[in-house]
């Protein structure tokens, strides 16, 4: 007959041999080493590994080397020409749009019709909202 200590009743209670040979108080030693990082696919040499079915091979290591080049470029321009074109387009649209916005708001703030000098209460049919022409 084997026994174990029941934490619930605080008494000894019957147990199987498995509990005696794997005592409840002992826990397996936890490894303190960092577990190996598992990439989704094993990182082998491309020459020994057939092309994976989903979207080709893992290009991340090459990209890591590329983006860590100490060329002094900020991250948003690191790729060179394509980054520059996209940045310039974005900035042009934004700054151009801001100027357009300020002009539009300036024009919108001008009184458009002679009839808008109404005294309160004014009837809606004499003044209308300005129309915007291009």
């Amino acid at each position, binding site marked *: 007959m084997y026994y174990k200590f029941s934490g619930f009743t605080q008494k000894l209670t019957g147990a199987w041999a498995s509990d005696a040979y794997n005592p409840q108080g002992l826990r397996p030693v936890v490894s303190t080493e960092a*577990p190996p*990082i*598992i*990439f*989704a*696919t094993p990182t082998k040499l491309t020459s020994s590994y057939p092309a994976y079915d*989903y*979207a080709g091979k*893992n*290009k*991340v290591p090459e*990209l*890591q080397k*590329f*983006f*860590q080049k*100490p060329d002094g470029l*900020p*991250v*948003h321009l*690191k790729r060179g020409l394509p980054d520059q074109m*996209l*940045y310039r*387009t*974005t*900035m042009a*649209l*934004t*700054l*151009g*749009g*801001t100027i*357009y*916005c300020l002009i*539009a*708001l300036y024009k*919108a703030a001008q009184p458009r019709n002679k009839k808008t000098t109404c005294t309160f209460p004014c009837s809606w049919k004499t003044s209308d*909202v*300005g*129309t*915007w022409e*291009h």
Partner: protein
Amino acid sequence: MNHQTHAFHMVNPSPWPLTGALSALLITSGLTMWFHFNSMTLMLLGLLACIMTMYQWWRDIVREGTYQGHHTPTVQKGLRYGMVLFIISEVFFFAGFFWAFYHSSLAPTPELGGYWPPAGINPLNPTEVPLLNTAILLASGVSITWAHHSLMEGHRKHVIQSLLTTIILGIYFTLLQASEYFEAPFTISDGIYGSTFFVATGFHGLHVIIGSTFLTVCLIRQLLFHFTSKHHFGFEAAAWYWHFVDVVWLFLYVSIYWWGS
């Protein structure tokens, strides 16, 4: 050689906060131009600038984290705090619309007939498409959990399959909601019922679209081998956001579709 002796990320100077802020100006003033002067140019310009800013800003974050290794555990902790705080702010955003709904529906005015749903409103049957939509989002919550566990265990194919399933369910939900919007016997201008219904469900639908887009980006990144079994915060952020969207729907379903019908 310059080496940092701390775990934080000192970001390169970036133009995206400026272009993002200016695009917000263009969108808002563009709305004014659209409403009052019948011109969509400014608004479309603003939307384009906004989308380009978002693309480049998040592209840069992927470069900084995945390619340049700046996302140390300390930095990742900050990103986690950031995402949590953002989702909390979204909770408060929706809380406002729920407040409006309960304010109007708990004490219906005499103009509405003194009862809810108001006089003349035929609400949607909650046991039809809305119930299907509930099942769809709950299932998508299961599939995204499956994706996360597959990712942590290194099962590449399963991650792709389950993430795809989640995205397809999200798109299915969106299509069903769109068809419900077309078929509904009431509109947004049908009094307070229409306003609360379409504003609350409409913003929810927008968040489903945002969440599905975020998940699609995660799928692309997974296909490009960006995620490891131990480090995949972008995916976790998308999963948190998706669960939030699901929970908001459950509140919408119970409050507006079910109790409110």
